[in-house]
Every structure is written in structure tokens, then in C-alpha cells.
């Protein structure tokens, strides 16, 4: 069973994603900040990370850089309400950049594709 880490400062969003992804049969953990996420990642292995950018404390892009330095193979899906961060080339390190939407269809589809590509589905 694939293991997914959700990083978002909004509790409601984390709750929604946990609910939906668990419904789809993934093992889901969540972190409310970049610092917490990096801490978790240093202790456990995950198959995929869903990462928000705009958060209090360290932002998602900075966290993504650290994650990639540690494990270049870890697929990270950036999930931001704001499309402008695409201009920052660091976001190109991520597997993909998906704009937040109440319709999680696009996100879920990407998650499935990514895991399937890595043989983790």
C-alpha cells in the first residue's frame, strides 16, 4: 500500500485530502508545516508527497529543495492555490504542479499516474 505525506497548513484541507485519499485506499499521513514534514521524512519513507507552498514558517519551495537534496527520487506534487509560483524554476523539481481545486479529480489522477509509473500502485 502506497504511503502518501500531505503537507498543508490548512487543517480542513488536510482533513479533506486524508478522507478522500484514504477512501481511495492509500496510507496517508499529514504535516501542518514544512518543518514538520521534513522531520517526518527524516524518520519515515513515503512514496509520494503532496506539498502546499504558502505556509507559515518555511515555505513549500524551500522544503521541496531540501527534500530533493535528500532524495532525488521522491515524487512531490505541488498543490497550491496560487499558480504564480510556477514562475519559480525550483518548482520544476517537483513531479507536477496542480492548482488547488475542490474537485480533487485532477490531483487524484496525477497521484495514481505517478505511483503507477514508479510501480508503487
Amino acid at each position, binding site marked *: 500500500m502506497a504511503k502518501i505525506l500531505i503537507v498543508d497548513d*490548512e487543517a*480542513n*484541507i488536510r*482533513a*479533506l*485530502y486524508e*478522507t*478522500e485519499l484514504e*477512501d481511495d485506499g492509500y496510507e496517508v499521513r499529514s504535516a501542518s508545516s514544512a518543518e514538520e514534514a521534513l522531520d517526518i521524512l527524516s524518520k519515515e519513507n513515503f512514496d509520494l508527497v503532496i506539498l502546499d507552498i*504558502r505556509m507559515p514558517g518555511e515555505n513549500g519551495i524551500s522544503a521541496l529543495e531540501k527534500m530533493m537534496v535528500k532524495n532525488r527520487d521522491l515524487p512531490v506534487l505541488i498543490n497550491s*492555490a*496560487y*499558480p*504564480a509560483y510556477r*514562475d519559480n524554476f525550483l518548482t520544476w523539481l517537483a513531479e507536477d504542479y496542480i*492548482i*488547488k*481545486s*475542490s*474537485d*480533487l479529480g485532477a490531483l487524484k489522477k496525477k497521484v495514481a499516474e505517478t505511483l503507477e509509473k514508479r510501480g508503487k500502485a
Partner: protein
Amino acid sequence: MNRTKTKTKMLDSSEDSSAVVILFGEPFAKCLEALECEGFRVIRADEGFEPNSSEGPSAILIDLSAPEARSFASRVMRELPTVPRILVAPEGEKVPEEDAEAFAYIHRPFTPIEVLDLLRLAVESGEYIREERPCLEVLLGESARELMMNSQWLTAILDNLPYGLLLVSNEGRVIRANDGFLALSKIESIEGSGLWSEIAPWNRFPQLAEAFAKCLDRGEAVKNILELEDGGFLEALFVPVMTNSHSAGVMMLFRDVTSDEASRHRLNALVDIFDEGIVILDREYKFVWANEIFQKMFGVGEGFIGQLCRTFFKEKTDFCKGCTVKDTFESGVAQRCFQIVTLDDGSVRTFEILTGPIRGSEGEISEVIEIIRDVSDRERVVSALANTKERLENTNVQLTRRIDELAMLMELSDALQAVDNLDENLHIFLTSVTAYEGCGFNRAFLFLVDRDNNSLVGRYAVGSSNPEEAGRIWRELASHEVKSFSEALATYRKAVADSDMSAASLIRAMSFDLADEGRLLVKALRDVSTRIYKNARSDPESRDFAELINSDSFAVIPLFAMGRPVGVLVVDNIITKEQITEEGLRAVRMLAGHASLAIERGILTSQIADQYEKLQTAYAKLRENQELLLRTEKLSAIGKLAAQMAHEIRNPLVSIGGFARNIAKHAPEGSNILRGASIILEETNRLEGIVDDVLSYSRGIKPNRKNADFNGLIARTLEMIEDQLQKSNIEVEVEFDEAVGEIVVDADQIRQVFLNLFKNAISAMPDGGKLRITTKSLGGFVWIEVTDTGVGIPGDYKNKIFEPFFTTKSSGTGLGLSITYQIIEAHSGMIWFTSQPDVGTTFNIKLPQERE
């Protein structure tokens, strides 16, 4: 004077008796001389007088103030009772009773004359008494009174003479003075003055003593002018008084001649003021007088007075040839003559001499005055002036011509300035060349430089090539007396109004390449030289052009303005055959200067007009850009705010929508929960759509371009909304130009553009309609048209539809068309629209057809 002489005679006649007069008292001393002069024998009583002597005295004179006088008087009265006694009493004393019988009783002061008169009377009466004793006293009294009166008359006459009069004896003793003399001498009386020369102020004048001596010696009258201390002048005339051919004394007459002298001094001053020699000649042509200037003029020394002028001048000059002095003496008319004289210093001078008569008291011409003026310089000036005058007259003729030319130029200049139109100006110029006096050529051709085509082009011509027509115009012009340029112009225009201007058509066809330097006109322009061609047909250089304008003799004048060639003027006299001269061309050249400027100005004006148009366009563009900039700035501010809000809204929307979807997924079919969750989901979608719009707008449109099949892109977008189109009963018509192919665009953004346009079209056609989409490749651009048959865009909104947040819909952000506009602009394209209410709207898009 006559009177004095008469009296002397009277005395002479009564002198036979040698009357003896006895004097008693010193004061009579001054009478002594007078008495002796008159022929009396005087016996001084104090020199031994014997009353009883046989020769009794004729009269006795007693000064009562002398010592012993009274006793002497008594004795005389006792011993010689018949001898008349003349008693002299001190001033103011009354006649005492004892003296009542005296012949006369006189008071001091008295004059010897008075005494003399009384004595004569007394002697005569004494003789009478001796003979006619009884009547003596009566007669004596009357005579005495009469004599007294005569004496007083004499005194009155003398005193009232306008002269100062002084009678002086040979010895210089004062005999008598009148009041006038006392007044002139400023003394009260001459009492006590023995000698006249002791009377102040006459003793101050030594010349008077000389005059006195001269008068006595020669028996001639002597005149002197005395200058007084107060600046006045006195004339002193000394006249000898003769008695029995010997001099008895001098009568001195004094007269105030101050005013005469002043006049004389003024006259002298006057005579020397003028720089003219003045001489007076008498009838014998001798110098009577000459002023100082004359003396200097001829270097005349003293002693020339009285010399014969002719002799005097003969020594030095031939002054007398043509002299008018003689004429003046004879005719009595003033004359004028000129004399050329070689002076001592060798210089030759010209003198103008005026001679005028001076008439004596009887009207006879006694003297001639000559006024001599040195006119040598004047003569030179006059002859120089005569030369100058001649030259001036010549110059004047030339100047008059120049002034006429300048006047014409001024008028031409004014006319040219007044008109801004090049054609009009050139017409004025050519007209003035052919019509106006001073130029008056038969024909004028104007070629202008065409800088764009580097050629010289025939532009205008004035004048007729038809001799008859030209003759008519000339006659018409000649019949008008033209005064001003504008008149000339008007007259000329009238004259040529309906004439055949064949010269004009002749020239229009001519054009010369400026690079072809073999051409006559091009050469003239290059050489900057005006040339007159005669017998042009026989000269290989000018033959071709002569044939072109059909003229054998003409002038070529290049026109320059501000150093740049602007054209060439050609003039000829094909009708009148008049020779073209340099002089005739001068006026034309001046005109040409003005015309060149007008031509240049015309060219510049048209260039400025072009520039102006370009500037107008640039300005419009600038305005547009400025508006765009303003809008962009406005949008930028709005965008930032919107982005902030959108971001804050999106997160909650994700939760809301996400859970609603989750709920809907688990809710039983047909349940209220499902319906509620669906509504939440729907509203969330709408809100998320708004947030998408706002965010993409505020983010700015940075196309991420890649090659894309443009027609396919539109087709796929249509597919995206196929459902809605069907639902709205809209027919779609597509006409794609295959030549459009792939172009480099941001596919997402272009999709967004068409999505917006299609959605708007759907909204505009709630009751169905037709949506037509065409693409066309043309001129490096792709032209797209999106046409609906909807309600159209109301005129009021036409300027606003591309503004952000403008919407006519009840829902939506109003950002759709604004984003569309920005995307197209970001692709260097253009979008615009045309719309008619209830007919429909067409959006046009133009994009560069570029490929990577």
C-alpha cells in the same frame, strides 16, 4: 558870435572920447582887462586920483566892500556929482539912502560883461547929462532899465544855449561862462577863477591847452573830442574871437557828443565784424578810409589815406581792370565786379568787390564805398559743385530706376508673403517677370527641382507663343497706366484670362535628369551662373533647348534658396525681339531671389504638412499607449488586491467543495443530502471559476509559447463547450484556412481566449442562433472572425467591454474580455469588434503568423 561882433562895433563908435573910468576896489581887477579891451582908459583910484583934474572921468566904479570905499564914494559924490557912479555891494545888501542917486547899484557876483555894459551906458548917459542936464535923470533911469533888461536877455540866451560856453581872454582869463558850462564842469560858479585852465576838470586835458594855443596862434577854430571818466564824450570847439584883426580871446564851446561817439564806435565794430575789406574812395579815387580787414587783406601799412587807389594798387596788382568804382560814381548805382589778384605771398585770390555810392548832403555822390570779399574758396567750391551736380543728375536717373525696382520688389515681396500657396506664389512671380515694367519679358518659363526624382521639371510658363495673342496682351497692358504692382498683376491677369497659354502646355512636357550635366538648364544650375544666349540655334551647347522653346535668344537664371538649387527661370522676348541685356536681367534676378525663397518655402510647407501628418499619427499612437499604460497601472493595483483575496478564498473553497463532493459521493440517490451537497458543489465551482479568472488576470499574461495547430486549437475549444452550444440551440459554422497551420502561441491562453468569446456568444444568444468562426492567413497574419447573431453590444458599452470588472451579466467577474484582450496583446496581436443591436457581434482577432 555875430552879436559879439555887433557890440564890439558899437563900442568902437563911441570911443572918440576915450572915456576914463575910475575904479576903486580890487574885485574889479578881473574887469580891468575887459574894459581896456573895450577901449576905456582905466584909472585905479588907489594909483593917485585927483577929482579936480580937467579931464573928468566918464564913470566911477566903486566896490563898497573895499576899505575906505565909503569915504571915497562920499567924496566923489561931493566933488563930481555929475559923474555916474556904479556901486558894487555885497550880495543881498539893500541900497542905502545915500546911494539912491548912484547910476547903478549892483550885487556880487557879477560878470565883466555886466560891468562893461553898465559902464558903456553910464559913459553915454554922462555925456548926455553934461549937455542936457535937466532931463538927465529921467532919461538915465529909462535907459538904465532898458540896458539892464538887455543884459538880462543876453544872459538868458547864453544860459539857454545847448552848449557850454566860456569866453577867455588872450591871457587865458575867464571873461564869461554860461550855465551850460557850469553844468558841464560840474561847478557852481567861476567866481575867483582867474585862468580858464585852472577850472576843473579842464586842466586834466593837456590837448585843450594845445588847442587854445593853436587857436590863438593861427586864428583857426580847433576841435577836440574829450573822453570823460564816466565814459561819455565831449566835443570842445575853440573859436578865436577877433577884434580889429587881432585876436581878443577864445570862445570855447563844449558839447556832449557821447551818443555820437558811441554810434561811431558801434559803426567801427560793425565794420570789423564782417570778414570783408571796406574802403572809401573820394572822387579822385583816393583812399579816405579803410577798415582793418582791408589793411590786413592787402598788407597795407599806415599812411595809405589820401593815396590814389589806382597808383597804390598798380604797384602790386592789376586791380583796376574792370573796376566799377568809376561806374558807381557816374551812375550812382551799386555795382559788382570780380578781381583776380596775385598777392605778395604769391597766392592768387579771387575778390568779389561791391561798389556803392555815398551821397553828400545835397544828394551828390561824394564818395564810393568798396566792400571787398575774398571768394577764392567759394569759386573753387562752385566749380566743384557744378561737376558734382552733373554727376548727381546722372546718378539720380539711375537711382530713380533703382527706386522703381525696389518698390516693385517690395510689392512683390508683400504679395508673396501674403499668399501661402506655392502655386499662387509662382504665378505671381512669373507674372511679374513678364508683366511689370523693369522686367517685361515676353515669356517666362519656370523649371523646378524635383528632389525625389532628382530631376528638373517644367512647372509653369507665362506668355503666349502666338504673336497675335501676345500682341493683344501687350496692347491691353500698354493702354493701362499701371501704378502699383497689384494693379499690374490684376491688369495682366485680366489680359491673359482667356488667352491661349500655349507656353504653359509647351513646358509641362519637359523634364531633365539632374545627373545629365550636358543639359543646358542642369548646367546653369550646377554653375550657378546666369547666362544670356544669342543666336542660340547656331550654338551646339544651346541648340537643343532653343529648339524646345522655339526661341533663338533667351536668358537662363538659376534659382537658389538658402544655398540649395530650387529651379531655373528662362525668359525671352520672342514677340518683341528686344535684346536681352544684363541691365534688364538685374530686376529679374532680384525678383528671382524672392521667388526662390517662396519656392523653398512652398516645398518646406508641404514637407511640414507631411511631418505634421506623421506627428498626428504618432500622437494618436502615443495617446493610445498612454491610455493603455494608465489601464495597466489601474489593473495592476486592482490585480494585486484581487490576487490576495482570491488566494485567501480558494483554500476554504477547496475544503467546502471537496467535502461537498465527498458527501455527495456517499449520499443516497435522491436524498436531500445529495441535493444539498450538489448545490454547495455547484456554488463552489462558480466561486472557484471567479478565483481562477481573477488570479490569471492579476498574474499578468506571460504566454508560454509553443508551436500549435491553430485551427485544431479552436476546434478543441469548441468541443469543450459542445454540450452548452447544443443546449442553447446554437448552430456552429466553421471556415478554417488550411494555410494557417501551426503558429507559436500559448495554447492554454488561446484556448482561454476562444472559450471566453464562445461563452459570450452563448450568453448573447439565449434563444439560439448561429456562431460562425473563420480563420484566414494573409500578409503574415492570421485573421480570425467570431460572429454571433445575438443581441449585440449596446453603444454605451462599446468602449468599456475590454475593461476589467465590466459586465452586463448577472453573474461573472467581468474579467473575461479583459483577459482576452490582454492575451491577444501579449501575443502581439489585435482584437476589435463590430456590433449591431439585435443583429449580432463580430470579434476580429489578428495574430502574427509566426512559427518557432
